[in-house]
């Protein structure tokens, strides 16, 4: 199996159309087949309550039959619902110019399902919020952080409404992870036709200057159009301001470079960036 396809996850929430459009855009640029994935997660909470606490002859067998029947009904509806979602998504993506579009359903937890198809996937597209959330809130969905931590394939996170991006901004911090991200972008056709801004937040030292210039050189050597920017101040608010000032339509960033323990104490820039972003974010690990 080669990493050739794009896998986009839809769940029927409001954001699924944005996921669909974002994935179609990526598919048409990368000329990669697109697979829509609908994961049927098992709900733990039982549908029915019986607090009588009494068990009689054959209770175990009856209980198994009963629970099976309930799950069967619930899942049949869910499968049917998912099939419609997938059909709609496939049609929409084909209309938007994606190539070789298919739909797939799996019974699994989202993360496990993504891990299972990771080796054939070059780019994941997921929405910021799942169907359990109110789409206006500035939070990230319950899955995102776990997915971003566990998956090492690039992830394109869709937000709100999709419009074809004309430029992008790359948050660069001079770390090894960020250099890897630069390499990756340089070698990928996804962003090569967009106007790029490489943004570094930190002290204006000659060292950070050189690092930033080097990064831009790598990109422009591969034919990318990029501009370096060195900003001072709080990372998150600087990037936000920059994004608004330059009308940035796509963000690129490395993710979760630090341990969970450090994040527990100082908080995570990644989570903040993901939850406040109004434009799609490409996450490279």
């Amino acid at each position, binding site marked *: 199996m080669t990493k050739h396809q794009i896998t986009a996850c839809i769940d029927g929430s409001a954001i699924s159309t944005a996921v669909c459009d974002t994935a179609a855009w990526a598919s048409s640029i990368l000329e990669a087949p697109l697979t829509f994935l609908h994961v049927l997660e*098992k709900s*733990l*909470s*039982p549908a*029915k*309550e*019986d*607090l*009588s*606490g*009494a*068990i*009689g*002859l*054959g*209770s*175990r*067998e009856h*209980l*198994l039959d009963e*629970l099976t029947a309930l*799950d069967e009904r619930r899942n049949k509806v869910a499968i049917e619902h998912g099939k419609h979602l997938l059909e709609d998504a496939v049609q929409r993506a084909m209309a938007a110019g994606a190539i070789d579009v298919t739909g797939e359903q799996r019974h699994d937890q989202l*993360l496990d399902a993504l891990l299972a198809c990771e080796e054939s996937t070059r780019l994941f597209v997921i929405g910021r919020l799942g169907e359990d959330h109110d789409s206006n809130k500035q939070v990230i969905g319950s899955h995102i952080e*776990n997915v971003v931590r566990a998956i090492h394939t690039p992830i394109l996170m869709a937000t709100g409404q999709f419009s074809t991006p004309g430029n992008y901004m790359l948050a660069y911090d001079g770390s090894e992870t960020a250099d890897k991200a630069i390499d990756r972008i340089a070698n990928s056709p996804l962003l090569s036709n967009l106007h790029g801004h490489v943004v570094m937040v930190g002290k204006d030292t000659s060292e950070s200057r050189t690092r930033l210039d080097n990064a831009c050189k790598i990109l422009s050597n591969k034919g990318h159009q990029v501009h370096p920017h060195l900003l001072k101040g709080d990372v998150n608010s600087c990037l936000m301001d920059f994004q608004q000032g330059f009308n940035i339509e796509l963000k690129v960033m490395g993710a979760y470079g630090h341990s*969970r323990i450090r994040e527990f104490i100082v908080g995570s820039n990644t989570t903040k960036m993901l939850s406040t972003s109004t434009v799609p974010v490409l996450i490279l690990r």
Partner: protein
Amino acid sequence: MIETIKQDWFSNIRGDLLAGIVVALALIPEAIAFSIIAGVDPKVGLYASFCIAVVIAVVGGRPGMISAATGAMALLMVTLVKQHGLEYLLAATLLTGVIQIAAGFLKLGSLMRFVSRSVVTGFVNALAILIFMAQLPELTNVTWHVYAMTAAGLGIIYLFPLLPAIGKTIPSPLVCIIALTVMAMLLNLDIRTVGDMGQLPDTLPVFLWPDVPLNLSTLQIILPYSIGLAVVGLLESMMTATIVDDLTDTKSDKNRECKGQGIANIGAGLLGGMAGCAMIGQSIINVKSGGRGRLSTFTAGAFLLVMVVFLDEWLKQIPMAALVAVMIMVSIGTFSWDSLRNLKKHPLSTNIVMITTVVVVVATHNLAIGVFVGVLLAALFFANKIGRFMVVKAEKTEAGHRRYNVVGQVFFASADHFVESFDFKEVVDCVTIDLHLAHFWDITSVAALDKVVIKFRREGAEVKIIGMNEATRTVVDKFGVHDKPEEVEKLMAGH
């Protein structure tokens, strides 16, 4: 990791809390009843149930399964308590925990695959019968009041859930206990109550080290009991885990459960409780009541302790007849009713395994022995069945030449049949044995092949063996003698 914790604990909060309370209410009579079986004060069982449930909620491998003081374990302790007293029971409980943790690290949970379905059914049925039999002392040599109370209790338990509206919201065992207690107090009946059976907890459990001499003779006393307790505890826990897996359609970590049971038992021993394990009946009640996550088990244990510590004055008044009714319900609910109906459908060997398991358990009061006999019997039946998958077909190719085609499994159970399948009386110059459709599994089968080859040689025939597949060849190379001339000579020299 954090996601898993969230999923295991807080994905079903309402259902888990309610189910936990329902289970706690059913656990109290059980813990008291099992303490009485073991011959210790009810507080020993109650502290154990609290501790085991709370600890296993955190460290167990099967969310939603209920563990506490159990009848299967209590039955094994009877003689230890009688001969040596409570302190030795606590020491044995600690050792049980250590053995179970070791079993978890050795991954013995996977050994459960050797326990066949019919043995599991036999185990479950035997357990139900033992729980029922343990109630009999409460029902012999008593006044008619006790019978009436027990019958009324069972009536309430099974009929109350049928009531519309409230039937499915209030646990009927609780209704039974309250109704019978009130009745006994109002009528001032002179029947046995929980208070007559021994000390109830009046404080929170305290940490204490068993008061036994730490020497070899103590170990000699407790080790046999601990091994039995550890085995039975793990068996019942693994079987219950499988049942809960099936009911909830989710997976469990059996080896983590082994270790968890061990830790829970060590905790119980240190808090003055007896050893326990997973409970089939209570776990079914939990799932039925909507419990799925670890929170349900935790709630059951915590709520149980709160109830017994603060309501101990009331607990004393509960008539034993009410407990007996609840325990009969648990016994009926644990029994596999389908297994009786399936007796007609299933093959005889399966039925023999199931019934033998039940009979041995009921006779010895030790579930471990029953399961051991059941597994042994099932293995023998299996070997016998597979042994029939072997046939030797004789075929005449040319004058003075005989060809034998061996098809199937050759091992200890079919080796004799294998040897008998050849005609040594026939006078031939050359014998070909074609093995390419045969499997040789053990040294018995290899010895049998050697015997055949040697016998033919002694009759003056030349023997050719062809088509040995890889499996056969390795076994033959390892154990065979016919292709090593000096070995054959040695064998022949004796004659």
